[in-house]
């Protein structure tokens, strides 16, 4: 498991508006890559192109190549549904399915794709909840609704739901922005653990978080409001935070703008 992502010459549009321009990067397997940058610079938009979630929005489209190992995700004949089974996603706000129990939430990816074997489901649910560091907190109330958990627990439930379908890559779109510091710490510990098995990509507004959890950091910026966002610089997190090549990166990281 865990695959390399190679993006080349990617442009992302909402209708006629170009939101992200000419991004090329390589995301290494079994590592954590963080996207940072000011609001509106297109990092979330870009993230959503990596599992073809961007095109869910009417009028949205993409130019360029996203290679998952040897396969181009945007080649003709590629089914976005199949792509999303391999590239999972965790969202900004915890979004467990309100009509389902904790168990069913974690099992939903398998159940909705036709797995009925009760024994297998039970195993996967337990393994996923353990993988998301949530098992001990919920093992006695698996049949209770998922929406009854705290925000941090709900987010870990969503991570458990995402890893239950055994993706190659997990995308996280500001997974901690709605959580308190203790829950954030729990999620960060979890991300550290997830990179043993998965390729993890995380968008964050919190630079300390990027510095703490990621191996590689990519800095996005936009020239002015209304202009497309661009990848300014990408490199090992240590280097980006201590000795960036670009002036803009340094300004952003040291808090001089953005």
């Amino acid at each position, binding site marked *: 498991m865990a695959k390399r992502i190679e993006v080349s010459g990617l442009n992302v549009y909402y209708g006629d508006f170009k939101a992200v321009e000419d991004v090329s990067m390589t995301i290494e397997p079994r590592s954590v890559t963080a996207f940072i940058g000011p609001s509106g610079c297109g990092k979330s938009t870009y993230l959503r192109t990596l599992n073809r979630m961007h095109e*869910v929005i009417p009028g949205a489209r993409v130019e360029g190549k996203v290679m998952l190992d040897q396969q181009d995700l945007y080649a003709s004949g590629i089914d976005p549904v199949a792509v*999303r089974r391999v590239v999972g996603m965790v969202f900004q706000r915890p*979004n467990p399915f309100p009509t389902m*129990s904790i168990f*069913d939430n974690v099992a939903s*990816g398998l159940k*909705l*794709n036709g797995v009925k074997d009760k024994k297998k489901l039970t195993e996967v649910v337990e393994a996923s909840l353990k993988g998301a560091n949530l098992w001990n907190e919920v093992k006695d109330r698996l049949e209770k609704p998922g929406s009854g958990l705290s925000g941090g627990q709900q987010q870990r439930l969503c991570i458990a739901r*995402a890893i239950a379908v055994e993706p190659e890559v997990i995308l996280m779109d500001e997974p901690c922005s709605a959580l308190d510091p203790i829950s954030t710490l729990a999620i960060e510990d979890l991300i550290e653990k997830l990179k043993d098995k998965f390729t993890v990509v995380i968008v964050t507004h919190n630079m300390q978080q990027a510095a703490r959890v990621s191996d590689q950091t990519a800095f996005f910026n936009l020239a002015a409001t209304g202009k497309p966002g661009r990848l300014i610089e990408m490199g090992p997190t240590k280097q980006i935070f201590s000795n960036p090549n670009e002036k803009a990166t340094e300004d952003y990281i040291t808090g001089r703008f953005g």
Partner: protein
Amino acid sequence: MTTLAANKPAYDGKTLDLTGKSGARAFKNTLATVLIVLCFLVALVPLLWILWTVISKGYHLLLDPNWWSQSQRGVTVRRVGGGAYHAIMGTLIMALICAAIAVPIAILGAIYLVEYGKGTKAAKVVSFMIDILTGVPSIVAALFIYAVWITVFGFNRVGFAVSLSLVLLMLPVVLRSTEEMLKLVPDELREASYALGVPKWKTILKVVVPTAFGGIITGVMLGLARVMGETAPLLILVGYSKNINLNPFEGFMGALPTMINQDRTELALQPAADRVWAAALTLILLVLLLNLLARVIARFSTIKSK
């Protein structure tokens, strides 16, 4: 730090008046409160009045088991006796056939409008047509079915024709309420499902519709309540029979609104007047029961504690 502290203005010793409302504002507040409570009471009075009148004048016939098991066969307006079984069954049969046709079309239509057709020309046309249909009076719907069912196709006046015209009245109500409920389901849930590699149709079936289910059921019940009280389609398309007829494809059929209409002509006679009130109360109870049933269904389907 020291300069900041030095520059800080000192406490100026004045006490702010934070206690009283000004007289004018207090007066406006009281006036608005009184007006709102009055409006509430005015709205409540006719409702309670109707309920009280119908219950007090109609309840004693409902206590008689014959009311629930016998028809009005051979009972004239001057005679006491008989029941409303034929009318209750007629109302239920026609309403349920109507629901069986209208509900699937309405729900699928709403799913199309919200999930697939958003922003397209087809969706705008459908939406506009539904708005028009909402305003169609029941007698127009009845005459339309009369024209198609009887004049063009040459069928007889039967219960099924009534159901068809009720479909025209129920469809827009259920479609609009279902549409609103589906719109309330947050996009985040749809995206969460897509992100698990679940296809769109399955997302709609297993995530979106179950989330909106309680609201959809409420809409269906509102639609049923509306069509069960309609009288014009009954008068035009099936007439009234005092006998029990459970076949919607043959013969005249009794129904509660037409039963009320039948005895209403002889209100001066006590037995007829009693039956009018009892039939009205029965109709209200029927709608109430269906509503309760819907709540139970909605509750059992949302809390899945297995």
